[in-house]
């Protein structure tokens, strides 16, 4: 069970990192002046949010490997023996990161729009370059607005890692499944998993409160 907890947390954190990176990219595309980039980001967030996580998970784990194999084999005779194996961890993390990237895109977009324009103008007036401005002025303020939203995404994401049990990743739920089958005590094991998830949620809530306090340390109330 503890082994499973470790896998769950690791998978959750890795997916969250992927989601944040994709979210920043998506938000940048949505706010960019280029129309194709905006349309692509819009399509990404709309489509991903309309399809169940389970279907996407199965699609990536079983479908994508097969699709790329078929495509690559079709390219040339010399690739006849090409095989693509995606391990459950990679497939699961990529899927969840991809799905929740769509949600973080919206979070970052809102946060960016919430930063006052004058702040950026002031940075330019001080002679900051683009990179310096983003690092010193934009990101710290964006984080303040984005944190509550990111926290919500994290709470949903950590629960969604349970779906990785479907593709046989030995995380909490999968391990409980195995233990339940071996001992014939399904209720005991699934209930223990539920309690562990409650602990994760409770600890995350406390952690987020702390993080929000830290991000808002410069705000007058």
């Amino acid at each position, binding site marked *: 069970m503890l082994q499973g907890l470790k896998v769950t947390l690791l998978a959750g954190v890795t997916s969250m990192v992927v989601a944040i990176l994709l979210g920043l990219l998506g938000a940048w595309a949505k706010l960019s002046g280029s129309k194709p980039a905006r349309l692509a980001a819009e399509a990404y967030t709309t489509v991903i949010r309309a399809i169940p996580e389970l279907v996407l998970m199965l699609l990536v784990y079983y479908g994508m490997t097969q699709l790329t194999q078929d495509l690559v084999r079709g390219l040339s005779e010399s690739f006849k023996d090409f095989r693509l194996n995606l391990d459950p961890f990679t497939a699961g993390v990529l899927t969840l990161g991809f799905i929740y990237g769509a949600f973080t895109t919206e979070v970052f977009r809102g946060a960016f729009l919430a930063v006052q324009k004058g702040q950026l103008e002031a940075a330019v007036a001080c002679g900051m370059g683009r990179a310096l401005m983003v690092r010193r002025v934009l990101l710290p303020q964006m984080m303040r607005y984005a944190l509550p939203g990111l926290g919500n995404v994290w709470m949903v994401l950590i629960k969604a890692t349970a779906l990785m049990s479907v593709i046989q990743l030995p995380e909490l739920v999968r391990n409980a499944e195995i233990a339940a089958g071996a001992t014939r005590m399904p209720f005991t094991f699934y209930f223990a998993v*539920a309690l562990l998830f409650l602990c994760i949620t409770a600890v995350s809530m406390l952690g987020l409160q702390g993080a929000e306090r830290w991000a808002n340390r410069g705000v007058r109330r």
Partner: protein
Amino acid sequence: MDWQIIIDTLPKFLEGTVLTIQITVISVAIGLVLALPLALLRLSSNPLLWAPVYGFVFFFRGTPLLVQLFLIYYGSGQFRDSFEAAGLWFLFRDPWFCGVLALTLNTAAYTSEILRGGILAVPHGEIEAGRATGMSGLLLYRRIILPKAVRLAFPAYTNEVIFLLQATSLVSLITLMDITGVAARTAARSFDYYELYLTAAAFYLVIVLGLQYIFKRFEWRVSGHLRARPEDRPGAAAAPAQGPAPR
């Protein structure tokens, strides 16, 4: 891409769609009925009333739906004897019942929180005005607080309905043949994974986008009194006033 398998499986997919929608509608309806009293209990100042609801909501919002589903469907097997003694085993043996039960309790927990948020967001002035005109208790809730709270909570509630629709895909894991179940079962036999899962994804996409469209139209219809009148909109003033059109 093997189109034949998609065409061959279409009738089954349509059956799956019916099951998906059926489960969604039943869970949403019962969940909504449960959510209102839960929200009101949660708002009570008596800890004997709000504490159990708080625990219920915390549990169902803090654990994955998948675990709740397995807990009810597989977990009930551990207490088979007592369920049989109570004559309830035929219910918990049935994956359809367990699926609907898990989804209903889950959505009831989420919806009660959404409603609670709506009730708390009703402006104080409106409640005070209601009291000033002599309303109290039930009448105040029925005439002032609930209509306003429902309107405030509606956008969040539509999201919850769409999430629940997507969450019904989990019942395929307890052997039900909804859209996902059809795709998974057929793919396990024919190995046409991406064709079938992409088809399933397309089905969900169409249903969700359609639902979003309906909700948006509905919201537009019921917010008529909040929209600017056509003649107040910028640009409309330039058009010459012609009086009522002849009928």
